[in-house]
């Protein structure tokens, strides 16, 4: 069987090695999904969210108050929670600025959503070919964005130390209620996000190494893969 | 106070006029709320401002400051016209029946005998007709046209409700409501108490304000009874004591008076003071004057005071003027006639009127000594604090000594309260730094002066060298030694008058009270009215028995009250002419046929028959005076007079200004403003959060009332475009201050003599030292004129102007 590789001299690749949205010819074939910038950004966001979740829950329900020990006591927890919130807000919206276009919904998303049972049962062959993000990921993206805005606004209203005097107490009461509701919601979204990443094997490396296997791309985001291939974003260096 | 704080609970009606008890005496005012809560008593407040007292009153009526006499005369007229008089009391216990000399009269706001040049009255006609028997002539039927009662009715005739409204600005119906409520107390079983303070005294006719109410109380039969009386709420913890002890220019101790130049020797001095009774059988207690005077001289100069040298009478300075009162002293100072001044716990540049004059006066001193536990503006009067004390430091040549004293917590001693209780207190803490007791400081200055006189001799050293100073440690007389000296002791054995073989008091022993004092030099007593405070039974001022049999509020076992532990003055008047209490439910004393029994120490001899001896034992008449004879410089009856600075003219005599006989120094007359230039009527007062200029040094009180302000009506604020909480400038002919504006509904413009009068209220607690914000006081604005009888400055009524302004500028000083 012919091995064109032996005959043809290797060409200088058209894309820079490790560039986002490019294919490493391999073998094995790998696709660069996230560059280091986005990955750091993601993990900063993720870690703040987890810390917020822990400190927040500590102040949300007495049975979880023990969590304040993680932050060096109640006073520290009370002090640090809003500051982490600020970090999350900034870091998330840096991410947002870069990803929002790709997360705009399209016709495929409607079909994807209508066939959610196939999604859950893993029959992706029945689904249309998808671009870089599917409707589920887009939902998480927009959900996070919306909830984080609610949380930062209500959080600031309830931030006694600096903003306690800015709004009326009835307003602050509502803020606190919304804050806790939004927190519950964002935790649900978070769970969905994490679980989806785990359940869909081969996904997590996208945020660790930054790459996914060609097969993963073929299976979940074929349109994205084909598009890259079509545009020749292939790095053939061995 | 004729009665005690605790006695107020027995009243049916409290009239707070010329004072603001809730604000200035909250814990005394408690007894008003007790009377309200438990007797259903009513509270009336008559004041230019709706005060804290008014906030719990049953009825409030506004009045223009300085028009109280018109109001009170109006009430008296109302009571008499409506037969609301306690006739039996009035007839038995006042001089209503006394016949007055012909020639006495009143016209155009002036009594007979006025001399405009001298600004004084010839008072010779203001007296009783004296009969051949040497006693005053009376007409118990009250029919004689010249009897006091008829002259009084005549004098009161013009004071109709309409005139009251015209002069005081009190709406007629409000006045009538007050008059009606007061008139109810003419019943023998209803009493009214009058609680007043500097709202009445700080006027050019302050004494007459008080007389007017006292007369009303006599007509209603409320003097000497439980829940009645004239209750002067003294401003300071021991003003009563210092006055009793004669720390005044015209006084000696126990209301013995300083000799004048007319008193060429002891006998001449005595001749004008040992008043003989004007009615048969009366006590006229001053007949004992000689005993008290001799005992006083012995207390001062011991063996140096002998019968031969008229008890060292020549050691006493003789006055050429009625008094070297503070106004006169500062006038002299300002004219360069005073070189040295000692201020003991006193802050004249905030306390005395016309601060500019006070500052300029102090600047002319060679030296000034202040003794105080705290920083005072006076001790730093030379220090520039920008707008708050804008002086040219370098040009002030006064040498100043600021001596730190202990405060109450760091000393033993007694204080005399408004109810004449002498209460002992004990040292609780150690003095800070090098602070020393006042008595130590005084002793030190005295001993050093005495030493200089011993060494160098000098002008008339005798009174100094011979002054009794026989204390165990002459450097620091103890409170106990001084108290015993005040009480007095026998200098030689005192024999029992009934049994000459029996020694009543052995030489060297304390006399039991002033009844044992003698005029032969065998006793000494520093202050006769206090005698009994520390006798052989011990320190009666330290007694702590708070039992109160039958809840009368007398507390005879609690500390000591002068005189003789008596709690209610004129208490004999609480019973009728036969000695039966007017109101059995409020018995104070009762004649049991042989002696007086009851809850208090009777004024009159315990065995004096009720029909014979009148209750007013200090008066030659034995009764009280509705007609004051020549004893008041400005009239035997209170007559309406305007303040020297008034927004309206005197309706009785439009040309007359202020009190016609009050002393006004030329330079001050030139500094009186007119209502054309200064249209607004200002008054000064205390706030409950502060005590004078002391508590601004206290962080807590400073937080409760941090900054100087003035109070004005919403109407005036609108007229002058002054905003609530904004800065204003208030100025008079004598000075200018800057303050925050408190715009309030509690002050309303009054319609007086047909025109609206706006009131500006100015509290007095701020200066340039202490924890509170720097500020000013009303004394920067008030006029330098005093009462015609005792020279209390007219700080309650003066004229100002006001305008929106900006914050005052301060200057940082390195303290």
């Amino acid at each position: 069987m012919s091995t064109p590789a032996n005959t043809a001299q290797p060409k200088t690749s058209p894309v820079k090695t490790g560039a986002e949205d490019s294919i490493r010819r391999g073998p094995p074939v790998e696709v660069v999904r996230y560059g280091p910038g986005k990955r750091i950004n993601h993990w900063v966001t993720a870690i703040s969210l987890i810390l917020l979740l822990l400190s927040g829950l500590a102040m949300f329900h007495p049975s979880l108050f023990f969590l304040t020990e993680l932050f060096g006591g109640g006073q520290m927890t009370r002090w640090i929670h809003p500051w982490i919130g600020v970090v999350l807000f900034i870091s998330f919206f840096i991410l947002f600025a870069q990803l929002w276009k790709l997360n705009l919904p399209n016709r495929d998303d409607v079909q994807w959503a209508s066939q959610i049972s196939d999604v859950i049962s893993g029959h992706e062959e029945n689904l249309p070919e998808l671009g870089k993000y599917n409707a589920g990921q887009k939902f998480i993206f927009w959900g996070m964005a919306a909830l984080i805005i609610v949380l930062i606004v209500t959080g600031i209203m309830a931030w006694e130390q600096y903003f306690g005097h800015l709004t009326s107490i009835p307003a602050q009461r509502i803020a606190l209620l919304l804050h806790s509701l939004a927190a519950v919601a964002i935790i649900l979204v978070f769970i969905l996000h994490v679980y989806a990443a785990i359940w869909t094997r081969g996904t997590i490396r996208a945020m660790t190494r930054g790459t996914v296997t060609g097969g993963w791309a073929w299976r979940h985001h074929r349109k994205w893969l084909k598009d890259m291939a079509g545009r020749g974003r292939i790095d053939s260096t061995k | 106070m004729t009665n005690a704080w605790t006695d107020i609970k027995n009243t049916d009606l409290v009239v707070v006029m010329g004072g603001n008890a809730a604000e200035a005496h909250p814990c005394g005012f408690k007894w008003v709320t007790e009377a309200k809560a438990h007797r259903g008593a009513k509270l009336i407040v008559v004041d230019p401002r709706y005060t804290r007292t008014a906030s719990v009153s049953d009825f409030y009526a506004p009045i223009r400051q300085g028009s109280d006499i018109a109001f009170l005369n109006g009430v008296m007229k109302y009571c008499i016209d409506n037969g609301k008089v306690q006739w039996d009391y009035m007839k038995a216990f006042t001089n209503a029946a006394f016949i007055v000399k012909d020639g006495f009269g009143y016209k155009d706001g002036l009594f007979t005998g006025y001399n405009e040049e001298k600004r004084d009255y010839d008072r010779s006609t203001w007296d009783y007709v004296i009969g051949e028997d040497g006693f005053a002539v009376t007409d118990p039927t009250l029919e004689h046209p010249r009897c006091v009662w008829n002259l009084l009715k005549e004098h009161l005739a013009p004071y109709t409700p309409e005139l009251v409204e015209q002069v005081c600005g009190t709406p007629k119906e409000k006045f009538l409501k007050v008059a009606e409520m007061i008139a109810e107390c003419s019943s023998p079983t209803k009493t009214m108490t009058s609680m007043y303070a500097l709202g009445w005294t700080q006027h050019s006719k302050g004494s007459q304000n008080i007389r007017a109410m006292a007369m009303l109380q006599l007509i209603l039969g409320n003097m000497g009874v439980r829940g009645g009386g004239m209750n002067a709420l003294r401003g300071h913890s021991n003003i009563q004591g210092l006055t009793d002890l004669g720390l005044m220019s015209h006084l000696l101790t126990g209301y013995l008076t300083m000799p004048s130049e007319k008193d060429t020797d002891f006998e001449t001095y005595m001749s004008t003071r040992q008043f003989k009774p004007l009615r048969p059988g009366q006590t006229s207690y001053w007949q004992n004057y000689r005993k008290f005077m001799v005992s006083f001289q012995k207390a001062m100069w011991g063996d140096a005071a002998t019968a031969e040298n008229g008890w060292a009478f020549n050691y006493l300075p003789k006055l050429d003027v009625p008094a070297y009162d503070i106004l006169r002293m500062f006038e002299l100072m300002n004219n360069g006639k005073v070189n040295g001044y000692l201020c003991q716990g006193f802050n004249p540049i905030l306390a005395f009127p016309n601060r500019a004059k006070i500052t300029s006066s102090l600047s002319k001193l060679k030296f000034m000594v202040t003794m105080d536990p705290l920083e005072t503006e006076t001790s730093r009067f030379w220090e520039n604090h920008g707008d708050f004390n804008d002086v040219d430091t370098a040009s002030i040549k006064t040498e100043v000594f600021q001596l730190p004293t202990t405060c109450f917590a760091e000393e033993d001693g007694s204080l005399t309260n408004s109810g004449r209780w002498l209460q002992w207190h004990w040292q609780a803490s150690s003095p800070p730094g090098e602070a020393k007791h006042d008595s130590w400081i005084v002793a030190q200055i005295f001993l050093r002066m005495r030493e200089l006189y011993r060494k160098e001799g000098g002008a008339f050293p005798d009174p100094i060298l011979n002054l009794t100073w026989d204390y165990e440690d002459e450097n620091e007389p103890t409170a106990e030694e001084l108290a015993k000296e005040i009480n007095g002791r026998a200098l030689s054995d005192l024999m029992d008058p009934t049994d000459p073989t029996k020694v009543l008091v052995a030489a060297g022993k304390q006399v039991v009270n002033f009844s044992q004092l003698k005029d032969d030099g065998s006793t000494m007593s520093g202050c006769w009215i206090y005698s009994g405070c520390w006798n052989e039974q011990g320190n009666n001022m330290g007694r702590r028995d708070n039992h109160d049999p039958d809840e009368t509020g007398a507390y005879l076992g609690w500390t000591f009250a002068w005189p003789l532990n008596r709690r209610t003055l004129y208490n004999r008047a609480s019973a009728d002419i036969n000695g039966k209490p007017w109101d059995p439910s409020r018995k104070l004393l009762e004649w049991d046929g042989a002696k007086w029994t009851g809850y208090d120490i009777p004024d009159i001899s315990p065995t004096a028959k009720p029909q014979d001896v009148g209750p007013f034992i200090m008066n030659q008449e034995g009764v009280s005076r509705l007609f004051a004879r020549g004893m008041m410089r400005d009239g035997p009856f209170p007559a309406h007079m305007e303040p020297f600075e008034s927004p309206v003219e005197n309706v009785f005599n439009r040309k007359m200004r202020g009190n016609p006989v009050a002393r006004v120094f030329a330079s001050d007359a030139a500094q009186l403003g007119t209502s054309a230039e200064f249209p607004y009527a200002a008054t000064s007062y205390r706030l409950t959060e502060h005590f004078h200029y002391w508590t601004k040094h206290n962080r807590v009180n400073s937080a409760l009332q941090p900054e100087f302000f003035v109070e004005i009506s919403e109407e005036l604020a609108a007229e002058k475009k002054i905003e609530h909480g904004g800065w204003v400038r208030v100025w008079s002919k004598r000075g200018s201050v800057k303050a925050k504006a408190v715009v309030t509904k509690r002050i309303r413009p009054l319609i007086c003599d047909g025109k609206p009068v706006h009131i500006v209220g100015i509290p007095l607690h701020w200066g340039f030292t202490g924890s509170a914000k720097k500020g000013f006081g009303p004394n920067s604005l008030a006029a330098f004129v005093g009462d015609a009888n005792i020279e209390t400055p007219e700080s309650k009524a003066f004229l100002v102007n006001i305008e929106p302004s900006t914050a005052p500028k301060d200057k940082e000083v390195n303290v």
Partner: protein
Amino acid sequence: MNMDLSRRSFMKLAGAGVAATSIGALGFGEAEAAEIAHVRPFKLATTTETRQTCPYCSVACGIIIYSKGDVRKGDKAEVVHIEGDVDHPTNRGTLCPKGAALKDFVKSPTRLLYPMHRKPGSDKFERMSWDEALDRIARLMKDDRDANLLLKNEKGLDVNRWTTTGMLAASATSNETAWATFKFAKSIGMVGFDNQARV
């Protein structure tokens, strides 16, 4: 010295019954060994009590000064708290906003600690020893008295009047101090001698 701190209070007088039950209701008599309590430890425990009188207005409320240290035992005593004296007939333990804050008057940062002297024209106070200050004051006063005491008036009568140095006496010193001051002032012939009463 009479330091009777009798605990007999108006509770014993008929009528204060309500309060009596109130205090009973606070569980007294049944106090067992206390566990860790959150309430502040009672701060007057082991302080020294002294009967005193409020120095402000003329109601003369009874107060009790609580101090650390006992002057009667010769200790250096410091005021820790001041409260109304319940046994006092007039104020019954109550106090006004001034009386209630007396501690901060006694301990005011502007209490004077040392004799100070301001030279003519100077813009500051400088410390001076008591002896120096008192000697100088006595000297100034004697010189002025010697120069200006009016022994006789124009009619040749003894008047022994000294008008060129005056004194204002305090309104809150004790009667005993007042008497000492009176003796001093009147014996040196001072006539410009007055007090707050007139103001």
